[in-house]
């Protein structure tokens, strides 16, 4: 009886359950991001304290020279499992500018737990000047500001020329070659139309400008063929494949305090894990509370259903 309405609503509901821009975006951009298994995934996910601490070490020793972390305060590091004294000692290793003092002077002092991670550059201009024109973005929210989340950061850090598998490079070359050819064919069709119009005009003795014939593209077979800007580095997972950040991670770039071998992949995963925490520090609270709220609601709704049945049992 109600099929019409239900069917219509089901069609509407489908719109909410599908990623709307999915197919188009996938076709435009390069290879699929490798998906890692993160301990914070899933309804019971939590952060891995060891990985967070290693990630902090990578951030501090490698990334912090270019990238800020302005929404994270030293006191927040308690989440990573550090004690109050450890945090105080950690903060004191940084110098922060404070003031003005009673004489109206700004002064420098060691960091305190309530301070935030200091910015690596005094302003955007200085940041751009030090990085051939590109400003290294603040990393506090990076894991939520890109569609792939932590996988995106891991992908960027491991997406450099010498790090990606050959198959990925080949797929990029094929994809770009195809895109160029498609564009060439479209241009050619347009050119032929214009040429016809031009010929007609010439025949009629009118003045006209001959259209330019598009150039047949060469197949792309190497990174050089991609024609990236000079200051940029190839990266398989960055839109357009040319990123201003030089490869930041190298084998044994940090000496992990817990003895974990510092492979590039390990460091990339740890710092991505850490940045996910930086972006969503309340994730564990949220997922933990969610379970309790849902259990309560399911029971409560069950009671409401029983009550409804009881109230309605005399209505036919």
């Amino acid at each position, binding site marked *: 009886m109600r099929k019409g309405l239900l069917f219509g609503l089901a069609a509407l509901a489908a719109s909410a359950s599908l990623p709307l821009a999915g197919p188009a975006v996938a076709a435009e951009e390069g290879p699929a991001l490798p998906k890692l298994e993160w301990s914070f995934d899933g309804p019971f996910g939590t952060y891995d304290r060891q990985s967070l601490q290693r990630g902090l070490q990578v951030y501090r020793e490698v990334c912090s020279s270019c990238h800020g972390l302005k929404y994270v305060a030293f006191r927040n590091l308690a989440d990573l499992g550090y004690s109050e004294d450890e945090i105080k000692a950690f903060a004191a290793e940084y110098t922060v500018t404070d003031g003005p003092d009673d004489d109206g002077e700004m002064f420098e002092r060691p960091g305190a737990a309530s301070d935030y991670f200091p910015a690596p550059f005094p302003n955007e201009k200085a940041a751009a000047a030090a990085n051939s024109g590109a400003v290294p973005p603040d990393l506090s929210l990076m894991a939520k500001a890109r569609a792939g989340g932590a996988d995106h950061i891991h992908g960027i850090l491991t997406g450099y020329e010498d790090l990606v598998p050959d198959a990925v490079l080949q797929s990029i070359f094929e994809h770009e070659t195809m895109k160029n050819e498609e564009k060439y064919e479209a241009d050619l069709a347009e050119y032929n139309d214009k040429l016809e119009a031009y010929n007609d005009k010439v025949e009629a003795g009118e003045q006209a400008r001959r259209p330019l014939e598009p150039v047949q593209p060469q197949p792309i077979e190497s990174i050089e063929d991609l024609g990236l800007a000079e200051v940029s580095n190839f990266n398989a997972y960055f839109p357009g494949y040319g990123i201003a950040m030089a490869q930041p991670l190298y084998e044994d770039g940090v000496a992990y305090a817990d003895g974990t071998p510092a492979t590039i992949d390990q460091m990339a995963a740890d710092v991505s894990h850490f940045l996910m925490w930086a972006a969503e520090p309340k994730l564990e609270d*949220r997922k933990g509370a*969610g379970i309790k709220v849902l259990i309560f609601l399911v029971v409560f709704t069950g009671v*409401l259903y029983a009550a*409804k049945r009881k109230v309605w049992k005399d209505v036919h």
Partner: protein
Amino acid sequence: MSGFQTNSRVIKWIEYRMPVFSFLNHSIGAGYPAPKNLSYMWNFGSLAGFTLVIMIVTGILLAMQYTAHVDYAFDSVERIMRDVNFGWLLRYIHMNGASFFFIVVYIHMFRGLYYGSYKAPRELLWILGVVILLLMMMTAFMGYVLPWGQMSFWGAKVITNLFSAVPIFGEGIVTWLWGGFTVDNPTLNRFYALHYLMPFVIVAVVVLHIWALHQFGSNNPLGIDPKGPQDKIPFHPYYTAKDSFGMGVFLIVFAAVIFYLPNYMGHPDNYIPADPLATPAHIVPEWYFLPFYAILRAIPDKLLGVIAMFGSIAVLFVLPWLDRSPVKSGRFRPIFRIFFVLLAIDVVVLGFVGANPPEGAWLITGQIATFWYFLHFLVVLPLLGVFERPKPLPTSISEPVLKGGGSLAGAPAKPMEKA
């Protein structure tokens, strides 16, 4: 369906001076008779009201911590997420609540479309509903600007810029809306003031909406009028119980999204602070605007696009006069039902088109879907009213099963009491 009675002296004292209790009794209590056959589709009206309350409560709490200034807005939202007690919960409820509000109201509207709830004598009720929809859209649009992320800024810019399509006054209107020569601090400030105000305007229109509803009561899945007391049951306890259960189910789904997929319906770019110098690759509005956005971009001419977009809502205002079929419920309209499903699919297709750049196949699909949308309301519905042969209607709600022919006209209606 008794009048209001009480033994409490306090209540009697108040009631004598100001009859709030009998008012409530007649509005949502035992004194308000409702058709006995309302399906779960009739839960969405009270759900919409419930969601509105959630939005107002979380909104006011957020407002206590939010700073409406281009230099501090983004930071203040992050402070709410990180340092305010349960700030993350408040923000995720408010953020996803907007989406759920639209889901609920869209279902509520499609319910009305299917069962012909917009027809006489409920035209004004329907029109007030469309007014609510417009107010909701304005509120949601301005709210999305407040966190001052990339999509906030560029969404505001694209949408306000639409007004530049108005001949002669266009540029002037846009400058006036912005309070300057671009989207900037004055824009953010006025959007915040209006975002705080509009929900209360919505509350006022909801009151009118419900006032109009109570004049004739709810429509029902059969679309025929209740013939007498045997077709009705008191709102309380029957529909209060049923609505409460529906609210429980709604809260389960809502909580699952808030706690496990809080950013699923959002756009990652809005976690990047607004930057007037860096245009995002794709500027997309929130999902609930996508069908309208698709209609806007289906038409290459800016002014005509804007007209079509507003027209897509304007047709809803005149819908009661476009659909002239005397039969309300889609159950008894075999051809209408098919077109109803097509319309629902059409709107979903428009949603997908709106999420993608207006090029190639997407552009053409969008144009066909836009054409179909208007064809449905402006041509199909008026023609169906004339040419469709509806199925025979049951004589009363209590006797919905037709046992052949019109001989049922005088059939006795079953009383409401237990058999």
